[in-house]
């Protein structure tokens, strides 16, 4: 294509025309902060890990422990907690490993893959947490029905009046709605957050994949 060769000629000439940056300018730049997406992913991820751990911490107050004891599932919850922490530490380890593997010296395709998989770790962590929340809500409801005296008397009243199945359906629907709203809000939030941050990267990643098809 002769136009492209013409451009090549012009391109080479243009090299002389850039405003040259001095050594002093470069020294100045070295101490500036990067605004790369990798840095943002790191910051957001740390906030996310912290957020979920704070949530877990807030819910594990003494009252909650007493309640578990009265339900008789303290041991069970302890085991669940230990497993949970092992999984969280696992997530953080994988995240750190992925993050460290991001290198600007890799090929563009490999670099994008590392970034995407770093982000995916955090995304999986969030889904895992939402799953745990759902599970906790379900267990709480079941426990409430079988252990909470107020609930039991209410239930007995419903049974006496013959509304048992309607009442159970009502409780299940309310809980499901509650879970759906929580998951929906988080899904939307992350869609927006990462959608804005990684829009360009995903577009380029897709383009690169298309070439390889």
């Amino acid at each position, binding site marked *: *294509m002769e*136009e*492209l060769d*013409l*451009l*090549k000629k*012009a*391109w080479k*000439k*243009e*090299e*002389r*025309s*850039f405003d*040259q*940056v*001095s*050594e002093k300018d*470069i*020294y100045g*730049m*070295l101490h*500036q*902060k*990067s*605004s*790369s*997406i*990798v840095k*943002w992913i790191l910051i957001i991820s740390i906030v996310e890990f912290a957020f979920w751990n704070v949530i877990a911490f807030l819910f594990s107050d003494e009252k909650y422990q007493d309640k578990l004891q009265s339900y008789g599932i303290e041991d069970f919850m302890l085991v669940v907690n230990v497993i949970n922490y092992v999984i969280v530490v696992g997530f953080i380890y994988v995240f750190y490993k992925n993050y460290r593997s991001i*290198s*600007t*010296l*890799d*090929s*563009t*395709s*490999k*670099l*994008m893959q590392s*970034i995407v998989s770093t982000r995916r770790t955090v995304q999986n962590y969030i889904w895992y947490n939402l799953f745990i929340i759902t599970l906790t809500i379900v267990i709480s409801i079941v426990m409430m029905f079988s252990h909470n005296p107020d609930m039991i008397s209410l239930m007995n009243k419903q049974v006496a009046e013959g509304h048992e199945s309607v009442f159970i359906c009502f409780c299940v629907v309310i809980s499901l709605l509650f879970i759906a709203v929580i998951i929906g809000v988080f899904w939307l939030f992350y869609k927006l957050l990462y959608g804005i*941050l990684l829009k*360009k*990267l995903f*577009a*380029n990643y897709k*383009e*690169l994949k298309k*070439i*390889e098809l």
Partner: protein
Amino acid sequence: MSQDLEQSFVKQLKENQNIIHKICRLYTSGEDAHKDLFQEITIQLWKAFPKFRGESKFSTWAYRVALNTAITLYRKSTRSIATSSFDTTNHFIKQEEYNYEEEEQIKLMYQAVYQLNDIEKALVFMYLEDKDYEEISETLGISQVNARVKMNRIKTKLKKILNP
């Protein structure tokens, strides 16, 4: 030691700064955006510098980091390019023999290249820099055959933009 490292980096970067300027030229429009991307590339090069062992030339090494920064790490959008920014294409011709038709053609070519996406620009950039398909394929992480096919498609695309 770290001061030596910094000094050596700054010196080499200064000598090779046109690589970065050229990438900024293709991926940004306007002086501010140019400076912004230049700075981000400098930071990324500096971060990667401890891993530069002098096995390859500084320039070869810098190409990859700089392109990766422009395509992957840099967040600001490069899509909205105002037509007025193309005026900058004029300045280098003036010192040479004035060839109005050629100048016009180059200007149109630049405009066409600006319409390409980031990956296509990277291929054009390396083509303009006389890189062979082996290096293009290694830099982008695609096969040589596919790099060649893509380059041909880009040429067709550019032709179509120039002669709609």
